[in-house]
C-alpha cells in the first residue's frame, strides 16, 4: 500500500503534522487486551452495580423499569438498524426512514399533535429545545415561565441553555402537588414566550393541562408540556388540551435503564410550528417510478443546510433508541397501551394507600396520580433508603436534593413490573426502616 502512495512508511504520512504538536511519547493508557479480558473486566465492573434485576426497583423520576419485550433487542441488534449513519442516501435507507415515519406517527398519535420529529437526545434537552422554538415563534418575548412540577433536570437544563438564548426563566410553585394557578397567573405577562409544565408532574400529580394551556394562551404565550408517554394510554393527550408543543423523555418506551442513557426525547407540535421544528423529520414521497418512499423532509430547517440560521444545531440524535420505542408501542398496540396505563394507575393507587397507612409515612400531596407519587417520611430518608436496600429494595427517589422544601420526601414509581406482592414487600420494608431509622435517630437525639 505504501508503494501505491509513494511513501516510505506509514509514519511518514504523519509528517503532515508539524513536529511541535506531535505527541512524542506513547499514550499513557493501559495496553490493549484480548476480548475475553475486556469482557471479564467489564463484567467485574458491572457486578459492582445494584441493578434492577438484583433489587426490586421503585425508582422513577423520569426513567422507569418497564418490561421491554424481547423482540426489541432482537430487532435493534440487527446490523441493518444498528450500524448505518443518518439516512443521507434515502434510496438505501428506506428501512431507517420508514422507522422514523412510523415513530413520528406513533408519537403524534400519543400526543394528539399532528407533527413529530424523529427524535431528540432525551427529555430535559427537549424541554430546553422547545424553549428555543418558542423564543423564535414569539419574537420579542424573552420570558419563560416554568412550573416547579417540571423535572428538576429539565429546569436545570433549560437554565443552562437559557444563558445562550438570553432568556429569563421564572419559576412558579406547586400547591397541593399541582402547579399553582395563582402563581401562574401572576407570572404571565406580555413578555412571556412560553409556559412549561409537566404531566404527570415530578411529584406524580396529574395536572389540568387544559386549564394551564388556556391561561398561557390568554397571555399570548405558548403552552409547552413535557409528558410521560407511558401514561398517554390513560391521560388526556396534550394535543387535546391545547398544548402547542409536547416533548418528553422516551425511555419508558422500549428503553433500557442504562444508568440514564442513551434514551430518546420526542418533540411534537401543532402544524403551525412544523418549519420551526428541531432535528430530523422523515416525510413520505415517491420515486421517479412513482414508488412510495421516505426521505428526510424539511431539511432546510437543519444545520447542514441552513448553518447559522438553522432552527437547531442537533445532528446525530437517537434514531435506534427511538425505533425501540416504536417496537414497544407496536407490541403493546392500541389496547395494550391503555391496559398498561390502567394497571399502573390502579397499582399506584394501591401502593399509595399501602404506604400512607404506615406509621411515619404520610402523603406529600393528594393530587391524582398515574404511576408515581410522593410521600414524606418521619425519619431521615437516606437512612431509610439504606435499610430498604439491605432488604433488596430500591424504595424510591429522595426529593431533598432537588426540593429543599421536601427534606424527607420520597418519590415512589410503579410500573407493570412491580406487582402487588412487590408493593406489599416495599410497605413492610419501609415500615420497618422508618421505625428503625426513627429509633436510631431518637437514640442519637437522646444521646446528644
Amino acid at each position, binding site marked *: 500500500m505504501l508503494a501505491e502512495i509513494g511513501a516510505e512508511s506509514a509514519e511518514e504520512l504523519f509528517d503532515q503534522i508539524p513536529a511541535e504538536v506531535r505527541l512524542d511519547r506513547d499514550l499513557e493508557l493501559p495496553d490493549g487486551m484480548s476480548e475475553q479480558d475486556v469482557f471479564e473486566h467489564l463484567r467485574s465492573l458491572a457486578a459492582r452495580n445494584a441493578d434492577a434485576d438484583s433489587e426490586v426497583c421503585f425508582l422513577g423520576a423520569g426513567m422507569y423499569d418497564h418490561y421491554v419485550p424481547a423482540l426489541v433487542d432482537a430487532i435493534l441488534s440487527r446490523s441493518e438498524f444498528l450500524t448505518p449513519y443518518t439516512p443521507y442516501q434515502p434510496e438505501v435507507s*428506506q428501512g431507517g426512514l420508514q422507522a422514523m415515519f412510523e415513530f413520528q406517527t406513533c408519537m403524534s398519535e400519543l400526543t394528539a399533535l399532528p407533527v413529530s420529529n424523529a427524535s431528540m437526545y432525551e427529555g430535559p434537552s427537549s424541554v430546553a429545545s422547545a424553549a428555543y422554538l418558542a423564543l423564535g415563534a414569539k419574537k420579542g418575548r424573552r420570558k419563560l415561565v416554568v412550573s416547579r412540577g417540571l423535572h428538576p433536570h429539565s429546569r436545570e437544563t433549560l437554565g443552562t441553555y437559557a444563558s445562550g438564548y438570553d432568556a429569563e426563566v421564572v419559576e412558579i410553585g406547586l400547591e397541593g402537588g399541582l402547579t399553582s394557578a395563582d402563581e401562574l397567573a401572576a407570572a404571565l405577562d406580555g413578555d412571556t414566550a412560553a409556559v412549561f409544565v409537566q404531566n404527570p408532574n415530578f411529584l406524580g400529580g396529574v395536572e389540568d393541562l387544559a386549564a394551564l394551556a388556556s391561561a398561557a394562551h390568554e397571555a399570548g404565550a405558548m403552552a409547552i408540556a413535557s409528558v410521560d408517554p407511558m401514561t398517554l394510554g390513560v391521560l388526556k393527550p396534550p394535543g387535546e388540551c391545547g398544548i402547542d408543543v409536547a416533548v418528553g423523555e422516551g425511555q419508558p418506551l422500549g428503553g433500557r435503564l442504562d444508568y440514564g442513557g442513551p434514551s430518546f426525547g420526542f418533540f411534537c407540535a401543532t402544524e403551525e410550528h412544523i418549519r420551526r421544528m428541531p432535528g430530523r423529520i422523515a416525510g413520505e414521497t415517491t420515486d421517479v417510478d412513482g414508488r412510495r418512499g421516505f426521505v428526510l423532509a424539511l431539511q432546510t430547517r437543519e444545520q447542514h443546510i441552513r448553518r447559522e440560521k438553522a432552527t437547531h444545531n442537533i445532528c446525530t440524535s437517537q*434514531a435506534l433508541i427511538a425505533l425501540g420505542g416504536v417496537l414497544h408501542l407496536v407490541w403493546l398496540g392500541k389496547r395494550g397501551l391503555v391496559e398498561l396505563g390502567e394497571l399502573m394507575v390502579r397499582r399506584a393507587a394501591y401502593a399509595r394507600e399501602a404506604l400512607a397507612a404506615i406509621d411515619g409515612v404520610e402523603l406529600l400531596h393528594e393530587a391524582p396520580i398515574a404511576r408515581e407519587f410522593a410521600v414524606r417520611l418521619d425519619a431521615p430518608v437516606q437512612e431509610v433508603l439504606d435499610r430498604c436496600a439491605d432488604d433488596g429494595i430500591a424504595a424510591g427517589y429522595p426529593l431533598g436534593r432537588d426540593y429543599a422544601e421536601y427534606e424527607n420526601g420520597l418519590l415512589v414509581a410503579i410500573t407493570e413490573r412491580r406487582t402487588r406482592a412487590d408493593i406489599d414487600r416495599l410497605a413492610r420494608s419501609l415500615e420497618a426502616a422508618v421505625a428503625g431509622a426513627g429509633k436510631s435517630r431518637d437514640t442519637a437525639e437522646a444521646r446528644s
Partner: protein
Amino acid sequence: MQRDAARTIFERSVEGRRAAVVPECDVPDTQLSKLIPQNLLRQKPAELPEVSEPEIVRHYNRISRRNFDLDTGPYPLGSCTMKHNPRLNEKVAALPGHARLHPAQDPKRAQGALELMWNLERSLSELTGLPHVSLQPSAGSHGELAGLLLTRAYHEDRGQERSRVLTPDTAHGTNPATVTMAGYEVVKVATNPDGGVDIDDLRAKADESVACLMLTNPNTLGIFDRNIREMAKIVHDVGGTLYYDGANMNAVMGWSRPGDMGFDIVHLNLHKSFSQPHGGGGPGAGPIAVSDRIAPFLPVPRIVRHESENGAGPSFDLEHSAEKSIGRMRGFQGNFGVFVRSYAYIRSLGGDGLKEASETAVLNANYLLAKLAKGRAGKHLPLAFGERCMHEFVLTGDPARRELKVKTLDIAKRLLDYGFHPPTIYFPLLVDEALMFEPTETETRESLDELADAIDSILAEAEEDPAILTEAPYTTPVRRLDEATASRNPVVRQPL
C-alpha cells in the same frame, strides 16, 4: 435488498390483533375515573397498530433489509468515521449491571458505573491532552453547545461581554448552528490555498469581541492545519478561547493532541472515533475535555473520586453542584450505554492500538486517494486541496460535471448500484461538487481496491453515456426520490 412496495406497520393493523399480554390486575379493579378526574382522562385511544408478534418481527426484519449498513459493505462516508462496531461492545453494554442500572441509583450502589465513567474520562483526557472531562453531552453538536456555553461562562466570569465566534468556511454545519444557539454571531474565516485557515484573514478578524475560534483539525478537507500553534496564539492574544471539533479525532489518536495544539475545549464523538454504532442517526455521545481555566464551569453532575482512608481502594461519587458550573446539559449522567461501548473499545485497543488505528486510517485514506488518482478519477475527480491527506480526503467533481456532464450526486447514486455507500457529498461547501471519502482503519485493502475500481467503472460509464449515471440508481429498494415535494407538502405521519 427488499424491493417490494413500502407498507407501514399501521397498514398491517387488523382490529383485535395483539402481541402483548399485559399482566393481570392484582390490585382492586377500581374504575379509573374514581382515581383520576374524568376530564383528565383520555377518551379515544391512540391509534397504535394492532398486530401480532410474528407480524412485528417480520415487518421490521423486512424493512431492515431496505437499509444499507456497515456490515453490508464499505461505507466511506466522510466526517462520519464509519468504523466497524465490535460486537463485544454490544455484549458488555447489555450486561444487566449496565443496561438495568437505574440512573437514580444511589452512587454507593453504582460504583462500577462511576468507576467506568471515571476511567473513560481519564482516557479521553490523555487522548486530548486536556485535564478535565465531562461525559455529559449527548452528541457532537451537544458538545459544541456545551463548549460555547462554557466559553460564555468563562468570559462572563471575567466580566467580559463578547459577541462573535470565528469559524472557517470549511466548518461543519453544526458549528455555526451552535454559535447561534449559544447567542453568538458567526464570523467566517477564509481558507487558504493549502486548505488551511487563511491566517491573515484570521488575524484581521480576531479582536476583543471574539469569544472563540471553532476549528476542526485535521479539518473537513482532511488536511492538518500546520499553522495551528500560530492561530492559537492569535486567538489567545485577544482573549478568546479555542474550540476543537473532535469529529476528526480518528486521524490523530496518539499522534497529536488538541490540548497540545493549544485548544481549550474539545468535544469527541464517541460514535465516530470510539466505535459506538451509529444506529441510523444515533445514539452517540459528545464528551468534552477542557483546560484548567475552563474547568470551573463544567456541567454538573461531575464524577469525583475519593481515595479511601483505609487502603480499601478508591470510591466514586456524583457532585451535583459547583459554584461556577454552567449547570446541566441534559438529564441524569449522560449516555452511559455509549460510554460502556467506547470504554470497552479503548480497553480492547489500548494506547498502542488506538495509535495504530489512526495510522491505519490515514494509510487507508492515502491509499484510496492514490488508487483513485491513478484511474479515471485522477482526471475527472481530482483532489480539491493538497497532495496527501489525513484520515479523509475531498475530491471535486467539478471537472466531471463540466466534461462528462455528470454531477457528484449522479456518481453517488450510481455507486449504490455497485453495492457501496457513497462518500459524503456536497460538503465541505467551499469545494464544488465535493466528494469526501473516509475509509477508516477497519476497511481492508481489498475493499478499497474494489471501491476504487467501482468508481473507475462508473466514470467509464459516464464517458460512454452519462445517462447511466444521471438516471441511477436502478437496483435499490426505491430509486431517486422526490425530496422537493416532501418538503413543500410535507407528509410526516401516517393519516389514520
